[in-house]
């Protein structure tokens, strides 16, 4: 039997029960690290199945990617130039590209893929880039394997950072610190996740979205836009509460994914509050590198132009990463354009005067929410399914 991660109250409770030995270990003054590593194996089996095609793909994928990572780790200092680096990066991307594109192939090839492949890939690419940058001097196999396949955040993140993860892994917090910071906080997060996902998200889906007429009208589209935006937030923020809470109890303070996103005043602020671990990943590994390299090489003379092109490229990649569909490409272009317009707006005189007005807070939040909601409507594909 395969479980969808945090997909039902039963699976959340089951996953939480397996954390009790970790609590006991800490309270006895022992390290949680090795219990977590051991627990990871049955948990992966619960999520992927044992004799399943998913598990087979997972094993082949992990073995190949680890050969790449270790091959690159041992050889990168001996081979000059960036050719080898780009080759390794490209090779590590083959599985995810194949999995995303297989939707256009006939059965059974279109069944390719397994839970968490996107998020595991983010961690793998991060390792390859960090090895290239000279940030990784030692690559302990067990630690790296645990980082890449860490079960609480397997299916949809948050995307942790290697050095941050290792630092937590080797920490052994004192009893009182663990009880308050990790256990109580973690359990609280899991309860919050229940309310978000099985309360709010469930109700919105059950009583609004599923009751809309089959035929799409302007009205049904508007209602769907609001409902889907709230649904996606509660569903994903709920999932993130489970993932972060579970990680905390295992002693890993996984990064946050949401910080009251609908209170954002503009789209730039929105991405600092929504799916933060992903937007920071894209910021560090795509946007900033694009801007840095294009300015370094003099491809752009003007930093604003470089930044705005960087916004478009980053958001387009983010859109396409969700899947090879037209509406994801449109979604990426829309979010990129929204960032460019926001950048122009934030640097304008209008903004400086507007910011001092009494109604600035409320008006900019209402407008920003609608820009967000329209993006979500594009993302949902609702307008493209008849």
């Amino acid at each position, binding site marked *: 039997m395969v479980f969808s991660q945090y997909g039902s109250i039963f699976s959340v409770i089951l996953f939480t029960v397996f954390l009790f030995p970790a609590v006991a270990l800490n309270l006895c003054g022992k390290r949680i690290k090795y219990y977590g590593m051991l627990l990871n194996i049955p948990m992966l089996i619960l999520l992927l199945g044992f004799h399943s095609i998913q598990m087979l793909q997972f094993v082949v994928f992990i073995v190949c990617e680890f050969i790449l990572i270790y091959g690159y780790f041992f050889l990168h200092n001996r081979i000059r130039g960036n050719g080898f680096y780009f080759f390794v990066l490209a090779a590590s991307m083959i599985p995810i590209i194949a999995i995303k594109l297989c939707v256009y192939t006939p059965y059974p090839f279109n069944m390719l893929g397994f839970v968490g492949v996107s998020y595991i890939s983010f961690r793998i690419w991060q390792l390859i*880039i*960090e090895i290239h*940058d000279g*940030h990784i001097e030692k690559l302990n196999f067990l630690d790296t394997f645990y980082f890449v396949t860490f079960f609480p955040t397997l299916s949809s993140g948050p995307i942790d950072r290697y050095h941050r993860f290792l630092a937590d892994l080797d920490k052994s917090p004192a009893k009182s610190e663990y009880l308050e910071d990790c256990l109580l906080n973690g359990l609280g997060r899991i309860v919050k996740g229940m309310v978000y996902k099985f309360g709010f998200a469930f109700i919105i889906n059950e009583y609004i979205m599923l009751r809309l007429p089959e035929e799409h009208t302007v009205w049904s589209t508007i209602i769907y836009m609001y409902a889907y935006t709230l649904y996606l937030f509660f569903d994903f923020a709920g999932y993130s509460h489970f993932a972060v809470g579970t990680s905390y109890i295992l002693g890993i303070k996984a990064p946050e994914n949401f910080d009251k996103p609908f209170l954002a005043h503009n789209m*730039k602020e929105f991405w600092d509050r929504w799916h933060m671990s992903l937007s920071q990943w894209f*910021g*560090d*590994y795509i*946007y*900033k*590198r694009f*801007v*840095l390299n294009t*300015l*370094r090489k003099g491809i752009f003379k003007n*930093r*604003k132009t470089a*930044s705005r092109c960087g916004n478009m490229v980053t958001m387009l990649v983010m859109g396409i990463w969700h899947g090879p569909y037209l509406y994801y490409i449109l979604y990426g272009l829309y979010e990129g354009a929204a960032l460019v317009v926001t950048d122009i707006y934030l640097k304008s005189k209008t903004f400086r005067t507007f910011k001092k007005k009494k109604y600035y807070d409320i008006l900019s939040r209402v407008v920003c929410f609608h820009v967000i909601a329209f993006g979500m409507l594009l993302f949902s594909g609702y307008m493209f399914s008849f």
Partner: protein
Amino acid sequence: MENLQELALDILEAACETDEVREDPDLDLFEAGLIDSLASVVVLLELEKRTGVKLQPTDLEREDITTVNNFVKFLEKKVG
């Protein structure tokens, strides 16, 4: 030390495009809306231009440029 302080201020002033960074060395530049991710890239470019130290975006953490004082500490490690 004083040189690094001046270097930090010069770089941040160029990156944030305002001399407001000189007013308070403990001012949170993100909260004040003076610095953003583009500015953090310009910090790297300016550092490279002035000292020849070539860094990657992940070398510079958010805390390193949150305040002028934090950035001075960062420079002490990387340049000093």
